[in-house]
């Protein structure tokens, strides 16, 4: 974390005038960096060329940190026939054939992908045709090897099976563990990622999912490696089944610490679907010990989990109407019937420990108590597709599992059917993607940006969102020709920290959003603020900071006029005649108290567009039940900027 902070600091100061950085000192593993040292390292007079030395991120990279393939036993069970290589191929923009036989292609390539198959270990057939001397010494082995080399792989495989089933498999090349060479699914996953990784064009991360599902409550985490197979290949993924593995995140963190220490790899974990955890994702009381979380928990959680997956096919996790009754956009793609397998129904008191906004709020309280905020994380969206296909565009949605690839029936059939409740196919959410402000499209740059939380989530559209916080932004900065340059110069980007407000100053924010070049216009940009009052209770408030179409933001910071709706449901179309393409503004917190902890994040709302169900209805010429929503309001959520008072 310390190194990461230095990285972001270096990014912020490089190449132009000394920034009004929130913190004057940053202690790193290689010494303390203060203003003076930084000023010496980087000239304070900007270079003549505005482009020289520009090494802050200039465009976001879009990807998915969470795709399963047929290697995951459940994906395979639902009929997924694609493997990690296929998943990378598809994400790079190639047309492939989905498991169900339909052709599928993304509207445009993604920039990165993590294939995150479940960490159960799967055996492979022996590596007996690799031409090792002991294999070649065996006549059968030699014969298979030659068939292979002659391109007769199918025949060789058939002969191997036949020989094996007849009990005539040569002893010399099978028998005891340790003699023939077997590869695990993990080694295969690593190879697929290393093969697909193309620095500068497409990043293929090595990763896996630690699928903790204690009593049906979702505590899943995806583990992502910064490194290639040379380091990742030294370990086997951590599993959830005792005695070797554990369903407790504390044990996962121990494994992660061990992994970094012993292999030199760098890894991080991204949790998801708190909405199906029944009050266990962002605990105040830990479910495994029934005790209040302590400093050790907080230290580890914030160390290993810099990001959280806020939106995906199994619902949106920003907030819930029960938690945010004054938020008219809160009722969005809710999955709140019960836990993951619907064995236990939802109770209102669970919600607080399931949704991101509430976790941000509670994190402030915990920080005051423990000295560390366990819930200081940034956000990404991802798919959790079990199809090998990161295909969540509304008009190109290939579902959660291979059995929910496009058919006339998929929307109206149950998706999860349990004794106590049913989740229907139409409740699947075509969401989301991860946007990362990295300096280049490489494993290293994207991973480092994730660590410094310079990320945002989208429910699918590839909109560009900028969010900078500092104490010196002025209204004129919104007219600056290079918003990013002034943003980094005068403040910290999303995921960053502000502290110790200068006397009489309030936090100011440079906020901007640009529509998806192939998507819908934007309705509004909002800043969501959360803080903990003097009474120790947390609060939240939404401010509309930029709205389209000349609508008015009233003195209470809200725009009460709806953007309108152009969606033609039967034809599954909309028009960009409402909303706007680009918005930029400077916003100052009107109710700032420098003695109170707070966080700020941005939510960008698109104009209404057809939901995937409308595209289904049109294509398959079907009428869906009345309760099925046919429009959606896509959105982006940024990582917060936190404010911490002076000690």
């Amino acid at each position: 974390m310390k190194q990461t902070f230095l990285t972001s600091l270096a990014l912020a100061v490089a190449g132009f005038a000394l920034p009004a950085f929130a913190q004057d000192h940053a202690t790193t593993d290689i010494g303390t960096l203060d203003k003076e040292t930084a000023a010496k390292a980087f000239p304070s007079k900007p270079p003549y060329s505005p482009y020289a030395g520009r090494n802050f991120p200039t465009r976001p990279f879009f990807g998915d940190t969470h795709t399963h393939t047929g290697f995951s036993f459940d994906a395979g069970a639902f009929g997924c026939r694609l493997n990690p290589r296929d998943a990378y191929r598809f994400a790079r923009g190639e047309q492939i054939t989905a498991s169900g036989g339909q052709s599928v292609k993304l509207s445009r390539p993604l920039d990165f992908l993590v294939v995150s198959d479940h960490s159960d270990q799967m055996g492979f057939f022996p590596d007996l045709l690799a031409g090792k001397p002991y294999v070649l010494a065996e006549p059968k082995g030699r014969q298979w090897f030659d068939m292979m080399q002659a391109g007769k792989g199918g025949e060789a495989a058939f002969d191997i099976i036949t020989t094996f089933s007849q009990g005539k498999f040569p002893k010399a090349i099978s028998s005891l563990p340790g003699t023939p060479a077997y590869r695990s699914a993990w080694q295969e996953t690593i190879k697929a990622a290393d093969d697909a990784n193309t620095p500068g064009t497409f990043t293929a991360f090595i990763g896996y999912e630690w699928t903790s599902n204690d009593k049906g409550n979702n505590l899943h985490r995806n583990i992502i490696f910064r490194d290639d197979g040379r380091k990742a290949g030294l370990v086997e993924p951590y599993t959830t089944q005792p005695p070797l593995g554990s369903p407790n995140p504390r044990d996962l963190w121990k494994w992660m610490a061990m992994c970094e220490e012993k292999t030199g790899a760098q890894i991080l974990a991204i949790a998801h679907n708190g909405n199906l955890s029944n009050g266990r994702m962002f605990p105040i009381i830990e479910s495994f010990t029934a005790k209040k979380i302590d400093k050790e928990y907080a230290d580890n959680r914030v160390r290993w989990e810099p990001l959280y997956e806020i939106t995906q096919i199994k619902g949106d996790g920003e907030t819930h109407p029960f938690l945010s009754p004054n938020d008219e956009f809160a009722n969005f793609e809710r999955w709140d019937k019960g836990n993951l397998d619907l064995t236990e129904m939802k109770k209102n008191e669970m919600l607080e420990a399931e949704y991101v906004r509430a976790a941000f709020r509670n994190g402030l309280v915990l920080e005051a108590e423990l000295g560390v905020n366990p819930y200081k994380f940034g956000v990404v969206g991802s798919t959790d597709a079990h199809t090998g296909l990161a295909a969540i565009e509304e008009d190109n949605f290939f579902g959660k599992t291979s059995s929910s690839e496009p058919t006339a029936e998929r929307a109206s059939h149950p998706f999860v059917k349990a004794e106590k409740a049913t989740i229907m196919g139409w409740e699947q959410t075509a969401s989301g993607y991860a946007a990362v402000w990295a300096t280049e499209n490489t494993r290293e740059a994207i991973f480092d940006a994730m660590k410094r939380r310079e990320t945002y989530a989208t429910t699918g559209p590839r909109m560009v969102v900028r969010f900078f916080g500092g104490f010196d932004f002025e209204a004129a900065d919104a007219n600056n020709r290079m918003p990013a340059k002034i943003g980094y110069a005068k403040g910290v980007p999303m995921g960053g920290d502000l502290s110790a407000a200068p006397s009489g100053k309030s936090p100011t924010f440079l906020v901007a959003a640009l529509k998806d070049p192939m998507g819908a216009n934007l309705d509004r940009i909002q800043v969501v603020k959360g803080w903990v009052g003097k009474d120790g209770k947390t609060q939240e408030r939404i401010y509309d900071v930029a709205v389209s179409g000349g609508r008015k933001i009233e003195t209470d910071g809200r725009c009460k006029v709806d953007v309108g709706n152009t969606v033609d449901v039967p034809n599954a179309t909309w028009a960009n005649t409402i909303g706007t393409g680009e918005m930029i503004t400077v916003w100052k917190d009107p109710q700032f108290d420098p003695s109170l902890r707070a966080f700020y994040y941005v939510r960008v709302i698109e104009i209404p567009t057809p939901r995937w169900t409308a595209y289904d209805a049109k294509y398959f010429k079907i009428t869906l039940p009345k309760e099925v929503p046919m429009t959606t309001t896509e959105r982006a959520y940024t990582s917060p900027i936190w404010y911490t008072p002076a000690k």
Partner: protein
Amino acid sequence: MKKILREPLLHFLLLGAAIFAAYSLVSKRNSDEPGKIVVTQGQVAAIAEGFTRTWQRPPTREELEGLIRDRVQEEVYCREAMALGLDRDDTIIRRRLRQKLEFLTDDVAALAEPTDEELSAYLKARADTFRVQRQFTFSHVYLNPERRGQNLSRDIRQLLAQLQQAGEKADVAELGDSFLLEHKFQSLPASEIVKVFGEKFAAKLGELSPGQWQGPVESGYGVHLVLVSERTEGRVPALTEVRDAVRREWANARRLESNEKFYQELLKRYVVTIERPKPAEEQKKLAEAK
């Protein structure tokens, strides 16, 4: 290397062992003799190795004992479940088994190392797949139609004249409307242009002749005036430039072929009969039901 490769074999052997054990269990049951479970030295070593690979240290005695106890329990459950036929008609197990067999051909296909001649031929046959994309070095000035309103076409004309006069020296950072992304791009491949500006813009860019300010070019954002300073045409690369990619695609094609061939060979072992109700009969039944 050996160590790394050990662990999964166990699963495979266990599966095999369990199948044979299931048969012997059934016969043993008849004679009221208990089934035998032997955890061999090799298996113990493999269990320990699995732990070591996960935790980067050998298990303690207690840990190893725990793992062995667990393995025995798994073995007992596996045998009993299989004796009861619980593995049959289970979609998950059936699909997993199918998958494991398919991995065999995947492996087999992955193991043949292609010659350069094979790869050259593959590259030649699928030149489009491996084409080095057209690349553009360009500058652009953005005009926001919403902000310009009715003056848009007038502003385009004026700005274009201004830009054409300034040529390469035009200060793109100060002209037109502010834009959240960059104003200058260096050697950007066509597919990246699609990502950043959308398809329409990328297509239009290809039609512009380099060296002068042109436009308007429409994108999903609005209108742009563009100076393409350099365009590098796409080309079919030499094998040495793209050997890894060609090898990857070649291996994938080989894998798909092998899988199909393997299935066709296996299918020859079976006579498949599908008892479909005849449409006429179906209709008759339906009529009767009514």
